[in-house]
């Protein structure tokens, strides 16, 4: 398996740490404003070009943002891309549109409420100026098309001159009430009419006068009834025609065009549910190899499977696991080992995983252990008991990689998120707060961790040694957690969600 042989060409030294600046905020909370549950953001995703950003929330809505700084006009986009950007340019977005993707439902057979909360959003291939995306809640995946449509203002009707141009045509509104079209009264002209060879000059075609457009989102397909458990991931294949959806025990393969059948490719459900020890927590297709996908488990392992081998890929091609440190086992070992998110780097060679305590970077050519481990929550280790009591230990933090693969990021509590440099030799470890002043908190947090000097292990541990900074732990607020964030595919820009607000930063 050669997942991207091209080695990331490292510059002479490790890249300089980035200086993060606040860029934008959408839906900022005013002091004392109470956050509505439905407004809390539950998914963030950039599209492939980075020109669009989508967020989903617990109320089942999807909000789209579009980039304003590079694409002033569609027609000029290509020219602009060729031009050198002024250095201070950074991605700026504006609200584009929003739509209600999912509604709360009730499964009468299982007597089960289905939340409308958007679990994941994935962008699909743009075609002909229309945007396409997949959104999913716990059970149902939907395929959306968002497109500019001309606002029709019609004049020059054959019948009654429209009195109010623009609000539909009066002439036919009398007919549109009946389910059968207006012709029902007049009989079929096919049979009753013979037309003169030159046609009938008194007839005229309607004229569309307005050229205004507005955005319309239409649900094109619904992929339903294929998951018994909650869907945790969806991921598009590089072939542009298929995608997978994963729940706790199964991964299904779909064709985007076919919504009434899917193929089960992974099934970890044991014959007897009492034997269940491990569930699927996240799954993603390889960015370029259409036959490869990775999924993570609640036991902290990542499995790489090859769809070529077999129709049902219960046996993995490769297993990535970190050997357990001897003697360190405790009640929490398994809980905190559970991987909440995995992402492939753009080149497909590296994978990033997030468990409760750490971020781990894996090389798909090395299954003996991670290439690097970044401590995110080491300072919480003494408090695991409290975190277990208030269920925080089960929080699912997402992770992301920069487009150049040099940095990784993930969220934490108190609306903080951390950015680490993962290039060889880099010691970059920045803590930022999702607020208008992202570096406000940095003083409190370790920014220059010492490097492990051990040459025996290739694992580089950083950011762990200074856990005492927050010794009393009071300043950490477990109710404000930053779970969702995304890195712009081509530039150093991060979008992250703090409750109902979307913050954007650049460097």
């Amino acid at each position, binding site marked *: 398996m050669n997942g991207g042989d091209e080695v990331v060409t490292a510059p002479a030294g490790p890249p300089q740490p980035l200086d993060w600046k606040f860029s934008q905020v959408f839906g900022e909370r005013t002091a004392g404003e109470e956050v509505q549950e439905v407004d809390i953001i539950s998914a963030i995703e950039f599209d492939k070009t980075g020109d669009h950003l989508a967020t989903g929330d617990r109320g089942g809505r999807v909000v789209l943002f579009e980039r304003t700084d590079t694409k002033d006009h569609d027609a000029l986009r290509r020219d602009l891309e060729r031009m050198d950007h002024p250095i201070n340019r950074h991605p700026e977005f504006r609200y584009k549109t929003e739509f209600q993707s999912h509604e709360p439902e009730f499964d009468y057979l299982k007597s089960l409420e289905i939340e409308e909360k958007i679990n994941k959003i994935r962008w699909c291939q743009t075609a*002909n100026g229309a945007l396409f995306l997949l959104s999913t809640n716990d059970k149902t995946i939907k395929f959306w098309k968002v497109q500019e449509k001309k606002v029709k203002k019609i004049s020059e009707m054959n019948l009654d001159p429209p009195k109010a141009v623009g609000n539909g045509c009066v002439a036919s509104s009398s007919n*549109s009430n009946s389910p059968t079209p*207006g012709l029902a009264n007049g009989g079929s002209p096919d049979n009753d009419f013979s*037309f003169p060879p030159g*046609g009938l000059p008194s*007839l005229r075609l309607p004229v569309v006068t307005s050229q205004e457009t507005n955005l319309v989102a239409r649900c*094109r397909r619904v992929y339903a009834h294929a998951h018994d458990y909650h869907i945790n991931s969806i991921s598009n294949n590089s072939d542009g*025609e298929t995608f997978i959806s994963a729940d706790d025990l199964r991964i299904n393969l779909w064709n985007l065009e076919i919504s009434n059948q899917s193929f089960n490719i992974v099934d970890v459900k044991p014959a007897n549910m009492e034997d269940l020890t491990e569930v699927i927590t996240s799954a993603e297709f390889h960015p370029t190899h259409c036959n490869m996908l990775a999924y993570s488990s609640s036991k902290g392992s990542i499995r790489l499977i090859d769809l*070529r081998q077999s129709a049902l890929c219960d046996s993995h091609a490769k297993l990535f696991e970190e050997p357990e440190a001897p003697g360190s086992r405790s009640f929490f070992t398994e809980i905190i080992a559970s991987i909440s998110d995995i992402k492939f780097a753009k080149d497909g060679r590296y994978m990033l995983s997030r468990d409760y305590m750490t971020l781990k970077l894996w090389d798909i050519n090395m299954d003996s252990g991670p290439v690097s481990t970044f401590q995110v929550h080491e300072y919480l280790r003494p408090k695991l008991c409290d975190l277990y009591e208030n269920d925080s230990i089960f929080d699912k933090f997402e992770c992301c990689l920069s487009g150049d693969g040099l940095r990784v990021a993930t969220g934490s509590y108190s609306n903080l998120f951390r950015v680490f440099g993962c290039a060889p030799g880099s010691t970059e470890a920045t803590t930022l707060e999702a607020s208008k002043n992202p570096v406000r908190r940095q003083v409190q947090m370790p920014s220059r961790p010492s490097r492990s000097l051990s040459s025996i292990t290739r694992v580089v541990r950083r950011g762990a040694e200074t856990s005492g900074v927050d010794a009393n732990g009071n300043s950490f607020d477990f109710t404000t957690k930053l779970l969702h964030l995304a890195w712009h595919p081509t530039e150093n820009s991060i979008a992250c969600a703090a409750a109902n607000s979307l913050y954007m930063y650049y460097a």
Partner: protein
Amino acid sequence: MAMIDEPLYPIAVLIDELKNEDIQLRLNSIRKLSTIARALGEERTRKELIPFLSENNDDDDEVLLAMAEELGVFIPYVGGVEHANVLLPPLETLCIVEETCVRDKAVESLCRIGAQMREQDLVEFFIPLLKRLAAGEWFTARVSSCGLFHIAYPSAPEALKTELRTLYGQLCQDDMPMVRRSAATNLGKFAATVEAPHLKVDIMSMFDDLTQDDQDSVRLLAVEGCAALGKLLEPQDCVAHILPVIVNFSQDKSWRVRYMVANQLYELCEAVGPEPTRSDLVPAYVRLLRDNEAEVRIAAAGKVTKFCRILNSELAIQNILPCVKELSTDSSQHVRSALASVIMGMAPILGKDATIEQLLPIFLSLLKDEFPDVRLNIISKLDQVNQVIGIDLLSQSLLPAIVELAEDRHWRVRLAIIEYIPLLASQLGVGFFDDKLGALCMQWLKDKVYSIRDAAANNVKRLTEEFGPDWAMQHIVPQVLDMINNPHYLYRMTILHAVSLLAPVMGKDITCSKLLPVVINASKDSVPNIKFNVAKVLQSLIPIVDQSVVEKTIRPCLVELSEDPDVDVRYFATQALQSSDQQMMMSS
């Protein structure tokens, strides 16, 4: 504006509704586009309607799909083939839209129009359109372009032909896998129009590119092209170029590719001729029959008969039959099921002796398979073996298999075997049937599941058709009518249903003497559902029996039912009476 003559009103509405808010009305107008065109006349259709439609490209997909379809047959309405080119612009925009089905339809319509266009118009209008699409910014345009080359190519002058081939080569290497898939899908069609020398060079190099694509989905479609290309090439070229590819594909890393090969392989045998078939394709096929992946074995097993038909029987017995034996005990039930659905067809190919010696044991073991689908598939193709070796050799094992299926706990299995009973009856003959299967047919009428009772009633009718009314009078009718006294009303209802089905087959005499009295009796039933079903059955008997019987027996009964306390009984009785009135009026 509102000066529309009364008779023109419908057509005026139709035109206005091209832009109605209601999608159903727009769809309706688009489907009647030819009427609108005729009303406008050819010239205004060209100058106004077609440009109008070209503008209308952001409508809903359903409307665009209908438009793409209508435009394909629009040549007469724009003034014949010399004006066909005006239809190209609206279809060109439809070739770019996002929805696949709209694009496919637009391409289909463009092909249809292009096939009728005059040669100089093709060069002047069609080929430039094709080149624009092939160089389109969006992949959707490039996907569509692949399906148009085979129309454009034959009329192109030599220089343009070279350009088109180059263009197609570029599409085969497009960045987007969607475009490469479309190029792979359409390669066979395009190749059929290309001259032999270029075929061997240009097309084969494109084919090579596609067969080495990174994307499984592209290679899959390249496999599909193998057979089509193979048929175009001379046998020796086919052996030189296609054969190595297909043999390679049969060992591809991806099971999906091997699956496609398993499905297609037999088609290639003819193209390469008998000797390479024996030396290369048979070993490849044998490998596929023994593939690790069950899906591949399913595909290969399903083609066993087709493949053997191409080989001589000696080769089939020597190479394929051992695999077939293995497959009959495959660990996957789906493989056995696929095998069972075709294996009976091998009997005529192998001949009587080989069938008895080699195939019969396999049939018998499949008949005892634990998976019902396997047994059903064998039984459904019984007629093919019957012609070769007769049924006797099988009947010993057949009966237990049938009985077991008839009593299977899954109702779908029982339903499937009922469907085959008339076939079995015709193959096994009256004697065998009477002894063993008659009782089963009666038992199904009392099944717990409605669908089975319904099918059983139908089965009784089909058996009567097979063996004739006399036989039915002896072996079916008495037993069926006996059951009208069953204490459970649902079973009584089944019998009423069976009676209504049997009556037309049995003829009026037996209907009057045997069936009608039973129905009339049932009208005294205590359950209203039975009574209104009596009314329905009586209504269905009216056309069969003589008018006098209707007057004397049926109508009085219906009149009585029409005064029943139950509203549904009254309703159906009245319905039946009305229909009998109509019947009388018509006959008088």
